[in-house]
């Protein structure tokens, strides 16, 4: 297929996934910010949302040092000057979709087109909490619909595989970032690890990735930091975990390689990341530091992204 078509499909899937992730980040931040002061709730949650979304610099350029709830929400959800705002994600996804309409099924096109049209109805500044909640569930439902449409209607060929690779590369990045929220939301000095605030923070993270119930099914214990990290990093049953993402990335890249009759750098890189995940133990991860582990994973994941681009998309 055309490199431009593959590129469009890959980024289309990434932007849909990214919009979903941004909605989840906003969701978890709002939950954390709502904790009563008695639980030690602090005011730096919104700053942490910017760091997690990787938008701190861009925000600073627009709003300076003042971080307010309303500004952060507007910036992450709607700001045209933020290239990764939810609105821009939908906009770019739709532009990509228009240029590859022949590679999309009708169901996928309709999902993207109708949600782009609906987006306009939501984009009012200074939303109430309720409006915001409605908006975020609209975003999450859109990505579910898109994902479902792709899964149910696309031919299983390179078009499907490239769009899946895009989705999982983005999702791995997003899971890692959401997990990292906890690093940026520092516990106040008076709080201790395992205390009530710590507990709520970890719980909120699980909720934001719709994994709280899964957590209880898998571990059958109360929420503990290393178990949350285990679920989101190493547990292959968990569809958002880094391991699960890399199992999928490896599989779809191998499908592409088999179809084209040729292996390359991206297949090797994906396999080596997967085997590193397989050899990791939670004790070691916490020993070296969770944040450092996540940081190096994000770098490696980015490298895979650029290798895929060089190998196929130019």
């Amino acid at each position, binding site marked *: *297929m*055309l*490199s*431009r*078509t*593959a590129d469009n499909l890959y980024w289309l899937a990434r932007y849909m996934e990214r919009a979903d992730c941004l909605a989840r980040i906003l969701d978890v931040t709002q939950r954390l910010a709502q904790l009563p002061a008695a639980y030690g709730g602090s005011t730096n949650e919104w700053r942490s949302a910017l760091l997690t979304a990787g938008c701190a610099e861009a925000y600073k350029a627009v709003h300076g040092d003042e971080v307010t709830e309303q500004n952060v929400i507007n910036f992450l959800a709607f700001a045209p000057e933020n290239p990764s705002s939810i609105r821009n994600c939908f906009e770019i996804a739709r*532009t990509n979709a*228009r*240029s590859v*309409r*022949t590679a999309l099924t009708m169901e996928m*096109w*309709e999902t993207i*087109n109708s949600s*782009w*049209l609906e987006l306009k109805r939501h984009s009012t500044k200074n939303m109430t909490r309720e409006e915001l909640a409605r908006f975020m569930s609209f975003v999450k439902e859109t990505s579910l619909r898109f994902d479902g449409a792709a899964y149910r209607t696309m031919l299983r060929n*390179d078009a499907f595989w*490239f769009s899946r690779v895009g989705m999982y590369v983005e999702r791995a990045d997003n899971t890692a970032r959401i997990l990292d929220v906890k690093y940026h939301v520092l516990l106040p000095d008076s709080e201790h690890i395992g205390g009530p605030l710590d507990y709520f923070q970890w719980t909120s993270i699980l909720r934001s990735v719709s994994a709280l119930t899964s957590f209880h099914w898998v571990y059958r214990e109360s929420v503990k930091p290393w178990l949350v990290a285990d679920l989101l990093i190493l547990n292959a049953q968990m569809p958002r975990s880094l391991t699960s993402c890399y199992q999928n990335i490896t599989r779809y890249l191998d499908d*592409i390689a088999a179809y*084209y009759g*040729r292996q390359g750098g991206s297949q090797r890189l994906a396999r080596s990341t997967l085997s590193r995940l397989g050899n990791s133990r939670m004790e070691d991860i916490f020993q070296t530091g969770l944040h450092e582990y996540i940081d190096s994973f994000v770098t490696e994941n980015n490298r895979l992204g650029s290798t895929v681009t060089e190998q*196929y*998309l*130019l």
Partner: protein
Amino acid sequence: MSVAFDEMTNADGSIRSAYATLSRWLSNVPPDVLDMRRKEAEFIFRRIGITFAVYGDSDAQERLIPFDIIPRILTGSEWRRLSRGLEQRTRALNLYLKDIYSRREILRAGVVPEDLVYQNPAFRPEMNGQKVPHDLYVHIAGIDVVRVDADTFYVLEDNARTPSGVSYMLENREIMMRLFPELFADNRVAPVENYTDELLATLKSLAPGSPNSDPAVVVLTPGIYNSAYYEHSFLADKLGVELVEGRDLFVRNDVVYMRTTEGPRRVDVIYRRLDDDFIDPLTFRPDSALGVPGLMSAYNAGNVTLTNAVGTGVADDKAVYSYMPDIIRFYLGEEPLLKNVPTWRCREPDHLKYVLDHLGDLVVKEVHGSGGYGMLIGPRADKAQIELFRAKLKQDPNNFIAQPTLALSTCPTFVEEGIAPRHVDLRPFVLTGSDRVRIVPGGLTRVALEAGSLVVNSSQGGGTKDTWVLEEN
């Protein structure tokens, strides 16, 4: 102006045979059912996305072209006559272009004046002496035809560059079959959906080199901001070929390749929906970002087929049009099967004199104008407009032709006040491959939705209809 010929109802009120079933059906169907089906049609068009409205309300220039749910019907024998004439005309166009870019016998014979060619902005000196694959230039032609009475069709215009509208022909039929299955059960309507198969066979037959290999065909579009982008993606989809933009192609050693996920892949035939001016910045407009640098050198080396060929515009402007009957006689030694509208060439002094004396009765058109713009409709114009054109004609007579106002035929059309006659034209699509000419029965019928209006162009409030050719039992 005389009363127009109506394709359904004769002057004495009797119904013409082609419309017998439809007329019966129309008189039985309650008006609210028609209205409901019309709304349904519009809804389907929006969903499919052929209405450019799906691209968002903010893009006001992308809108729906109105669709009329009452079909326009031709009998099989009318169609056979028409299609023989279309084939003849297209054969002559191809021979003319080959001659113009090589020996120019028609100029030496004095049949067509030299300056019509050499001073024509669509003439491409780069094509002089260039051999094109299979000596064919116009592979996809849209010949606009109007009807004035039961027996007479006139050719109004030849479109030999990148004629559009075929996606409407196909989608209109698709919708009609969904909405009115009962009408199709009662009429034997010749299918049109094989158009894209015929187009693919035509394109493949035009590939340079050995006919045995499986040539790679692509559709080249200017991109998503082009107003006909929907049609480009529609055609690529139905043909099952890649829809490429200029940046997807590159030329190495005079061979055209597309950039694919498996590396460069050779391209043999390019169905380009991009004007000559833009296809290669190294040869034509250097500021074109839409084209492919080096494409013309690959073309000249005979390594790729461009569809239509470069330089075909020299055959389809309104001045050359008036010579088409002579062009047909010159190359084919046959009488033209389809008439031209009688045309006065203002470049000739005695014609000019006649035109100036009869401005109030004539339609005056610019030689290079299109889309119904820049023309004078004498009987509808006021004094000031007529004087304006008189001045223009005197200043630059070569730029104008004039024709009598034709009483274009009308067809029953579903409008605000119910079913009423409206003027129509027809654009059939003629495919010329190296093996043979293919024409699917029908074409795009355009209809002037305003009462009495003769302007069918979609840019000026025209709509479209499904066009039926009935097969006799």
